[in-house]
C-alpha cells in the first residue's frame, strides 16, 4: 500500500495521514469536465481558483488578491505573485486566460455551459487579468468560485496534451496528486511550496467505500478518519462509540416537492397545493427520519446564498385540520389522488410524506425513479404531477429560482415572477437583485409551484483524533482539518 510517511527518527506528529471515506470514487481529475460534487470535494485540494468561498459561503481571495468590476461585462483580477504549480512552473495571468477560456469554449466539457457567458479573458499584465462576459453577468463571481474554474498550467498542459496532463495533473493547491487507484482511493501528498502556508497533512487519502454500513464499520475500526454520508441509523452508534463522533452541517441541498400547475393536473388547484403544504409535518420527518440533521425551510435560497430570504428559513407550515378544511371547501369530498414521481434516493422521506398526505385525505401514488433516469425523465417532461426531489445550488445564488421560469417542469407561469427573474439575471446592482429574488421567494411561498420541505445537513462520521467542521458546499478543504487537542 501507499507510502506511509516515514516517521523514523522523529516523533509521530499525528499529521502523517488522514483518510476520508466517500461513497463514490472521483470520476475525473479534470475540474472542467466534472459535475459531480464528490469529485470536486477532492479536486479542490489540488487546484486553486481565482476566488473561493469560505465555510459559510462568503467569497474570499484565492489566487486573486483583489478584484473589481470594470464595467457591466468586465471584471479585473489582481493575481498572487510567487505562486508555483506543483511541477515548478510559475503561475501567471496566461494560465488564467488559458484555463477559463478552455472551459468556456470547449463544448465537450461538462462545465462548458456554466462558463459560456465568458466571452474572453484579457491578460493585462503578468499578474492582472480581465474576464469579459458577453452579457452583464451578476453571477460571474459565483461561477469563478466554483471548483470548475480551477486554474491549470497553460504551458505544461499544451505541451503534453490533455490525456497526459490528467495522468499526472498539477495545480497550485496545497496538496499534489500522488496516485489514483480507481474505485479504491486517491492519494494526495503535501505540496511544500503552497503559496499560502505549509499544508498540515503529509498524505491525504480519499478512500472509496460505497456501502454505507461498511463505511461506518471502517470508521468504527479506525480505518478512516472521516466517513461522509453516514446513515442516520448509525449516528447514535457512532456518537456512543468511543473514539468517534458525528459532525453535522447544512449543505446546499433542499428537499422539495414540485407540484404541476398544468391544466388537468389535480395539483393545478391551488387549494390542493396548499393542503399538501399544510399536511406535511416537516419537523417529524427531520426528527424521526433524519434524526434532526436538517432544517425546515420554505425557500430554496437558504442562508449563505445570494438573495436568501431568511424569513422563509427555519420555518414550516403544518396544520392538518386546516388542510382538511381547505380540501373540503374546495369540494373534494372523496379525497384527492395525486401522482408523485420520487427520486429513489429519497424514498424513505417520500414514504413518510405519503403517510402524512394520507392523513388529510390525499392519496399519493408514488413512482420511484432511479437516480440515473431522473435527469432524463425530467428533460423529457416524463414525470408525474408531483415530483419529490432534492435539489442543489452550486452557484450559491438566487438564480436557482429560474427553475420555475418560462416552460418549466411544473408549467408554473406568473408574469411577475418572469419579469423579476429576467431582470435579476442581468442586474449588476447587488441590492436590487437580492430584493428581486426575495420577492420571487415570497410569491413562491404563496403560490406554491413547489413546496420546500427542508435543507439537508451533511452527516459525517469523524474520528475523535481530529477536528472537522463540515462545510456548506460539501467540499473537503483538508487543510481546515486539524488534530484535536
Amino acid at each position, binding site marked *: 500500500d501507499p507510502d506511509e510517511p516515514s516517521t523514523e527518527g522523529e516523533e509521530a506528529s499525528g499529521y502523517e495521514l488522514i483518510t476520508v471515506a466517500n461513497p463514490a470514487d472521483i470520476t475525473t481529475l479534470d475540474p472542467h469536465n466534472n459535475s459531480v460534487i464528490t469529485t470536486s470535494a477532492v479536486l479542490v485540494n489540488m487546484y486553486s481558483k481565482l476566488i473561493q468561498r469560505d465555510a459559510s459561503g462568503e467569497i474570499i481571495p484565492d489566487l486573486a488578491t483583489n478584484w473589481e468590476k470594470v464595467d457591466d461585462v468586465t471584471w479585473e483580477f489582481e493575481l498572487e505573485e510567487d505562486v508555483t504549480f506543483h511541477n515548478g512552473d510559475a503561475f501567471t495571468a496566461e494560465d488564467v486566460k488559458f484555463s477559463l477560456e478552455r472551459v468556456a469554449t470547449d463544448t465537450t466539457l461538462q462545465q462548458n455551459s456554466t462558463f459560456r457567458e465568458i466571452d474572453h479573458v484579457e491578460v493585462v499584465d503578468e499578474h492582472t487579468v480581465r474576464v469579459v462576459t458577453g452579457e452583464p453577468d451578476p453571477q460571474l463571481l459565483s461561477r469563478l468560485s466554483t471548483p470548475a474554474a480551477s486554474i491549470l498550467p497553460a504551458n505544461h498542459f499544451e505541451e503534453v496534451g490533455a490525456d497526459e496532463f490528467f495522468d499526472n495533473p498539477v495545480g497550485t493547491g496545497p496538496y499534489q496528486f500522488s496516485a489514483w487507484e480507481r474505485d479504491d482511493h486517491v492519494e494526495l501528498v503535501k505540496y511544500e511550496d503552497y503559496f499560502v502556508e505549509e499544508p498540515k497533512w503529509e498524505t491525504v487519502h480519499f478512500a472509496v467505500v460505497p456501502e454505507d454500513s461498511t463505511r461506518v464499520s471502517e470508521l468504527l475500526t479506525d480505518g478512516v478518519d472521516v466517513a461522509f454520508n453516514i446513515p442516520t*441509523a*448509525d449516528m447514535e452508534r457512532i456518537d456512543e462509540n468511543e473514539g468517534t463522533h458525528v459532525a453535522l452541517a447544512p449543505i446546499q441541498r433542499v428537499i422539495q416537492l414540485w407540484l404541476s400547475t398544468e391544466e388537468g393536473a389535480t395539483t393545478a388547484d391551488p387549494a390542493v397545493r396548499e393542503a399538501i403544504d399544510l399536511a406535511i409535518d416537516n419537523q*417529524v420527518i427531520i426528527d*424521526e427520519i433524519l434524526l434532526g440533521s436538517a432544517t425546515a425551510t420554505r425557500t430554496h435560497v437558504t442562508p449563505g446564498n445570494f438573495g436568501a430570504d431568511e424569513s422563509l428559513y427555519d420555518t414550516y407550515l403544518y396544520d392538518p385540520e386546516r388542510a382538511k378544511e381547505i380540501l373540503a371547501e374546495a369540494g373534494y369530498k372523496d379525497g384527492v389522488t395525486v401522482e408523485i414521481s420520487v427520486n429513489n434516493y429519497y424514498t424513505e422521506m417520500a*414514504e413518510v410524506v405519503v403517510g402524512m398526505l394520507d392523513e388529510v385525505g390525499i392519496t399519493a401514488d408514488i413512482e420511484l425513479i432511479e437516480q440515473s433516469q431522473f435527469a432524463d425523465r425530467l428533460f423529457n417532461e416524463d414525470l408525474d404531477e408531483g415530483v419529490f426531489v432534492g435539489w442543489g445550488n452550486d452557484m450559491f445564488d438566487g438564480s436557482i429560482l429560474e427553475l420555475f421560469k418560462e416552460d418549466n417542469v411544473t408549467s408554473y407561469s406568473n408574469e411577475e415572477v418572469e419579469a423579476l427573474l429576467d431582470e435579476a439575471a442581468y442586474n449588476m446592482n447587488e441590492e436590487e437583485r437580492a430584493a428581486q429574488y426575495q420577492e420571487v421567494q415570497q410569491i413562491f411561498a404563496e403560490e406554491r409551484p413547489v413546496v420546500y420541505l427542508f435543507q439537508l445537513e451533511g452527516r459525517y462520521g469523524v474520528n475523535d483524533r481530529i477536528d472537522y467542521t463540515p462545510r456548506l458546499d460539501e467540499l473537503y478543504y483538508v487543510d481546515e482539518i486539524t488534530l484535536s487537542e
Partner: protein
Amino acid sequence: MKHKISFSKQLKNIGSRILELSTPLGMIGLITVSIIVILAIIAPWVVPHDPFSMDATKRLTPPFWMDGGSSTYILGTDHVGRDLLSRLIYGSRVSLLVGLLSVLIAGIIGLFLGLLSGYFGGSWIDQSIMRVVDAMLAIPTLLLVLVAIVVFEPGLVTLILVIGLTSWAQYTRLVRGEVLSVKEREFVQSAKTLGASNTHIISKHILPNVLSSFIVVATIGIATAIMTESSLSFLGLGVQPPDITWGSMLNDGRNYIATSWWIATFPGLAITVTVLAITFLGDWLRDILDPKLKKGGDDDDE
C-alpha cells in the same frame, strides 16, 4: 365414464405416492412452501396491520420479546414505523410472484427451444439456438438483468419479464441435453418404427420424460429468482415501493443491521427458509416424478 374412475384412481395414486415416498426433508419442504403460498394468498385477511401504513413515531420498535418491544408489533417495526410481520406476509406475495412468473416465462421459452434444439440435434435449428444459448450463458444473469432493468426502469413487471427473458438459456440447455439422451432410448426408436409423427413423439414420449428433471430445475429456478430479486433490491434496482418484496425489505434494513437487526433479519430469514424449502421440495419432486422410484413391489401377479 370409465376414464373418470381411472382418473380419480390416478389422483389417489398420486396421493398415495406422496405419502409413500415422503421423506422428512421433502415433507418439511412441502409443508413450508404450502404455508407460505397459503399465507401469500390470504395475506390481506390475516395481516395484523396495514403493511403500508407508517407511523414515524413508532419506528424501529423491536420484536415483542425485547426491551421496548410491543405485542402489537410482534416482529417489530421498520425504519418508518411499519409492522414487519404484516410486511413479511405481504412480501411473500410479490416475492413468490416474481419467482413463479419469471420461471414460467423462462421455463416456457427454455422448454420449447430445448425440445426443438434437442429433437433436431445437429441441424441448423439446433446450431442457431445453441449459439444464442451460449451467448446468453456467457453473461452472468445478474449482469444482464441489471443492464436490462436500467434500460426498462425498475418495477415489478420489468423485473419479472427481465428475469424471465434472461434466464431461459439454462433450461434450454438442460432440456436439450435430456432430449438428446431420451431421443436415443429404445422406446423412442420403437415409436418411430410405429410410424409416429414428430409431434406425437415429442409430446407423448420425449416431453413426459424430460419434464421431471425440468420441473426440478425450474423449482430451484424459483428460488434463484427470489435471490436475484433480493440482489437487485440490494443494488436499488429491484421491485419499487409501494410493492413489498423480501428483497426490498432486506434492503430497507441493511443500514440498520447493527442498530435494529430485526428489520433485515426477518426478511433474510424468510428468503433463506423459502429457498431452503423450495430446494427440499425440488429434490423430493425428483423422486416423486420418477415412476421407477416406488417403494415396495407389487411386481408379482396379484
